[in-house]
């Protein structure tokens, strides 16, 4: 919302020496955010009123003229293409240094002395839209120069002075005052400034109707319309309003229309209470405020045709609806070019009803946005008084022929009791009763103090919901005292033992393990998934929870697995990388087990926290990729101190290759899968050359151990020796079986400390159907240093056992 400081000054006298930066700061700190302070005159720097003394033809251009313009300090030649130039005309001259927009469009341009088709021109004679005044002085045709002849000022007068633009505009953030309906107008802000600086606020004296007639207004729905004042007047006509009214309406961002409409807008901008004027000759019988009947129709001022419903409140005459209450007037019965008599509406409509109607027809207006904040009905008095003041000023022949004030539901002022001890505690500061009382009284509250109790009565303009409890009163005291004047206070500490959140820590340890130890990059993706990846990775979108208004039609599914989005991420990164690994930790959702831990009436779907990972490479072999992924999982429990996993082969994940996959188990419960993304799925995901190994585990099921799981073993007293053996096995022999045979319950040799997989090899020099496996044996004794013969013997026992159990043969060296 934009506010004019000179307009605010109509209601509160702001000291001449007031620092406007400070004013903006104080209002921002205590009331609402002042986003910008604009010195309006700066827009018109280096612009002056010039008087055209002589117009001559341009020697080189038919459409251009060379004007001799009196600029007070001297006469200058200015080339101009305006079509309405006349000698003696007052015009706006943009002198060198002024900023204009060519034809009102495009980027601002700084005016310089220049030659136009060979003739020297001092600046330019402006059209209204070239200097941002298009809405205040609308041009009736192309290339029309702004004619300022009506402004009786001498040549050379700075344009800002001539047009009364020496004003300051305050831009206020609308969001910051949604809860303050009283601030939506110049009077409201003036009242706040008066309170902040303890300045006198000008009262708007109520207007008393002095007329007797049978003009009447009827309210049928007192809940939705608490007050309606209608004033019937004759002796008016459609004409321009005075320049001061027009310019003020323009300064704060609306457009002047004609005097009758301008008065209603001006009063709204001044008081915050919307008003409306009907053409009285078009209103048949009297005004009734009621709910619309289903099927009733109304054409609005903006030509929108509405089919009304029973929830809409309408202003009607005997022929039907003439206006959508609190939103917009009807086209037929509002001000028309030949209006001679008007009915002025100053009314109060209930906020949520106005809001519903405005939203229903997507027709939010300056009026509806004010009503929906909840305006107090007492404000009608100010709006009426100001309206009548301007009607009388603008129409000396005005004759009030009827007035009816239906005030069907008075607003009660909010009454609140506040304990002063409570207030002091919450403020963290002991303010004296006099200070508290003074601050509240400045804001229009009535205050009675008796002992510890302070009884506060809020002003009507703060009683529409804004002030309703003692915390509100505390805020009023604190903000007026100034938040800057409260020092930060340390919170009192109560030690209740160290915080030990194993579950939280485990997730963090896993993420740090994957990122920092396994060299993987954490990624974030959205909770919704593209149908393409859902279908490819999960098989179908069926049974997946969906959004009712998704970000895009194909993004409706919300994830029950992290893998589809990880596959998409792999696909997107393939353009730039050929070997990378990524992981994500996020929630997944299942359409089942609806329940809630917090409220028995609530039912939430099953939600779990998963960790998913993708290892993608076009340079590594699949067995290497597989061992990387499996290794990240195998060592995870060790590094993060949780219960360990086991791998089984029970149920192939739908997305996995037929051979390369494992299920991950924690005890007897399956908590995830590991596997190679099947070629078909990979292709459907648009992945071209990368092999992708995936895993996903349910982190909710992981069990953190109470402490670190490291164990200590005494250092070997006698040397241990690594001894590699390579043996030929059947091609389908499993390492787990080999290991079991060597290191299982009955160790192949008593001197064996460990057996580790080194590598396996199929191909050249290896018979068909066989593979060579290299095993590293660690051999040693706790009692003595072994001789090389003893070591050879131990290795021999291992080879013998493998030969017997697995049919393995020593590979010919």
């Amino acid at each position, binding site marked *: 919302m934009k506010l004019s400081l000179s307009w605010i000054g109509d209601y509160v006298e702001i000291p001449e020496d007031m620092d406007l930066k400070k004013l903006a700061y104080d209002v921002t700190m205590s009331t609402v955010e002042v986003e910008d302070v604009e010195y309006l005159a700066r827009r018109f720097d280096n612009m002056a009123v010039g008087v055209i003394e002589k117009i001559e033809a341009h020697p080189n251009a038919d459409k251009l003229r060379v004007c001799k313009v009196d600029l007070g300090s001297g006469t200058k030649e200015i080339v101009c293409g305006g079509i309405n130039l006349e000698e003696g005309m007052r015009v706006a001259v943009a002198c060198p240094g002024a900023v204009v927009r060519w034809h009102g469009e495009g980027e601002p341009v700084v005016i310089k002395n220049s030659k136009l088709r060979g003739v020297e021109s001092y600046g330019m004679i402006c059209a209204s839209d070239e200097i941002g005044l298009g809405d205040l002085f609308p041009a009736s045709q192309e290339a029309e120069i702004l004619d300022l002849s009506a402004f009786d000022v001498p040549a050379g007068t700075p344009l800002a002075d001539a047009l009364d633009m020496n004003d300051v505009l305050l831009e206020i953030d609308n969001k910051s005052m949604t809860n303050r309906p009283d601030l939506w107008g110049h009077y409201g802000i003036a009242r706040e400034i008066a309170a902040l600086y303890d300045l006198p606020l000008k009262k708007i004296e109520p207007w008393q109707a002095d007329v007797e007639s049978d003009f009447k207004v009827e309210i049928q729905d007192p809940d939705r319309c608490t007050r309606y004042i209608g004033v019937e007047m004759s002796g008016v006509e459609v004409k321009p309003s005075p320049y001061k009214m027009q310019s003020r309406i323009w300064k704060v961002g609306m457009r002047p229309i004609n005097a009758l409409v301008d008065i209603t807008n001006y009063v709204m901008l001044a008081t915050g209470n919307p008003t409306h004027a009907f053409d009285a000759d078009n209103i048949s019988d009297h005004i009734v405020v009621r709910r619309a009947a289903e099927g009733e129709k109304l054409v609005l001022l903006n030509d929108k045709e509405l089919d009304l419903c029973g929830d809409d409140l309408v202003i009607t005459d005997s022929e039907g609806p003439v206006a959508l209450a609190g939103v917009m007037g009807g086209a037929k019965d509002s001000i028309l070019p030949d209006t001679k008599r008007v009915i002025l509406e100053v009314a109060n409509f209930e906020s949520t009803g106005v809001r519903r109607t405005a*939203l229903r027809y997507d027709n939010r207006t300056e009026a509806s946005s004010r009503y929906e904040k909840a305006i107090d009905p007492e404000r009608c008095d100010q709006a009426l008084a100001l309206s009548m003041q301007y009607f009388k000023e603008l129409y000396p022949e005005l004759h009030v022929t009827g007035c009816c004030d239906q005030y069907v539901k008075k607003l009660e002022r909010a009454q609140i009791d506040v304990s002063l001890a409570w207030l002091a505690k919450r403020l963290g500061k002991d303010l004296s009763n006099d200070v508290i009382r003074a601050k509240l009284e400045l804001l229009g509250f009535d205050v009675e103090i008796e002992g510890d109790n302070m009884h506060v009565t809020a002003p009507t303009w703060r009683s529409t919901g804004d002030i309703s409890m003692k*915390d509100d009163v505390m805020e009023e005291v604190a903000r007026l005292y100034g938040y800057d004047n409260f020092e930060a206070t340390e919170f009192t500490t109560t030690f209740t033992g160290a915080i030990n959140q194993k579950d939280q820590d485990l997730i963090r340890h896993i993420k740090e393990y994957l990122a920092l130890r396994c060299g993987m990059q*954490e990624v974030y993706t959205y909770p919704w998934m593209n149908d393409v990846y859902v279908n490819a990775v999960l098989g179908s979108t069926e049974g997946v929870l969906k959004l*009712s208004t998704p970000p895009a039609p194909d993004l409706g599914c919300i994830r029950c697995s992290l893998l589809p989005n990880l596959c998409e991420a792999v696909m997107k990164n393939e353009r730039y990388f050929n070997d990378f690994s990524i992981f994500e930790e996020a*929630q997944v959702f299942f359409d089942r087990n609806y329940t809630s831990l917090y409220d028995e009436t609530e039912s939430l779907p099953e939600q779990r926290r998963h960790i998913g990972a993708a290892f993608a490479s076009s340079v590594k072999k699949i067995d290497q990729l597989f061992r990387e992924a499996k290794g990240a999982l195998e060592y995870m429990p060790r590094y993060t101190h949780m219960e360990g996993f086991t791998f089984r082969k029970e149920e192939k994940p739908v997305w996995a290759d037929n051979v390369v996959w494992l299920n991950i188990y924690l005890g007897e419960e399956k908590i995830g899968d590991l596997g190679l993304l099947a070629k078909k799925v990979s292709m459907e995901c648009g992945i071209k050359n990368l092999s992708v190994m995936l895993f996903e585990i349910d982190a909710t099921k992981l069990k953190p151990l109470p402490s670190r799981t490291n164990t200590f073993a005494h250092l070997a007293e006698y040397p241990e020796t690594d001894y590699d053996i390579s043996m030929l096995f059947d091609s389908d022999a499993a390492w787990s079986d080999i290991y079991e045979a060597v290191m299982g319950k009955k160790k192949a040799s008593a001197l064996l400390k460990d057996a580790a997989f080194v590598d396996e090899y199929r191909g050249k020099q290896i018979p068909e159907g066989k593979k060579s496996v290299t095993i590293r044996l660690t051999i040693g004794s706790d009692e003595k240093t072994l001789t090389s013969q003893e070591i050879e013997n131990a290795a021999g026992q291992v080879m013998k056992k493998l030969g017997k159990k697995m049919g393995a043969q020593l590979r010919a060296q």
Partner: protein
Amino acid sequence: MKDKINGILSEVKTKISEAASEAQLQNVKSAYVGKQGSLTLLMKELPHVDPAQRPEIGKLLNQAKKEVTELIDAKRTELKLKASEVSPDFDCSVPGILPAGGGLHPITQMCYDLNDTFRSMGFEIFQEDDITSEMYAFDKLNFPLNHPARESMDTYWLEGHDSGSTNEKLCLRPHLTGGSVRYMQTHKPPYRFVYPGRVYRNETTDAHHERAFFQYEALIVDKDITFTSGKVMIKSILSKVFGRDVAVRMRSGFFPFVEPGFEIDMECQVCGGKGCSVCKHVGWIEVMPGGSPHPNVLRAAGLNPDEYTGFYVNIGLDRLVMMRYGVDDVRLFHSADLRFLRQFR
């Protein structure tokens, strides 16, 4: 002859001490004690020497030859120890080999930094589910039915759960505060916890607007605390993020679930408060809302608002990370683009 020997000896000593490489040393060796070396040649002249002097001269020559050989050997060892194992053109400006290159998401990093800070002040870390009911998203937070804010936070409702009463309507949480009510319901006061999480709004995206973004909520509820304690929380967050004390101000602001409510601004870190285009020339940047939980919110959590009060802040992690590093497009955070993510180590 004696003089000749002594002359050669002093000459060879100088040459040995001057030798800079093994090759030079070798040359010295062959020039004096090699087959044609000058000492060797003198040896051959020995039979022509006066027999009376011969034994003395012979001894002298032998000593000289031995001394030279020893000096050369010593010098050779010295040169060996001094020399490098590689050739002198070894290029030390070649870059190092990067350790395995993984990383946490920049928002995770920021979140963990803040967690550490708050843990050290005795705060717990809380986490809640992403899907919630309208009851917890709005009712319990003092949003009246039909309140414009219910619409202003354009919410993602779940298909098949998007109508009916507010405990039946389900959505992706539009903010975290409803989850804080859940925490308070299930824990005993006083409370001191932080609550990081992702929230969702159904809006059009651009460089500054996202449909999914991260909030970090910190809440303290106790008897007898004042809103001014909140300043400590705010300062802790910002000094952790920016690595130094950051000036903050609290000003009047309105949010349905707090009373009083504040907008919290920090001094613009680009211009230091002087005013620049980043802060729209005011010197301050709005970073988070905050305030004391509204009595109705405390009631919803089962607390007596006459007894308990507190302070809450809710900070946008995405915005904080953007400000910290100068990231200019919020959508990068969910892009999973490794070119972006790998910049944060």
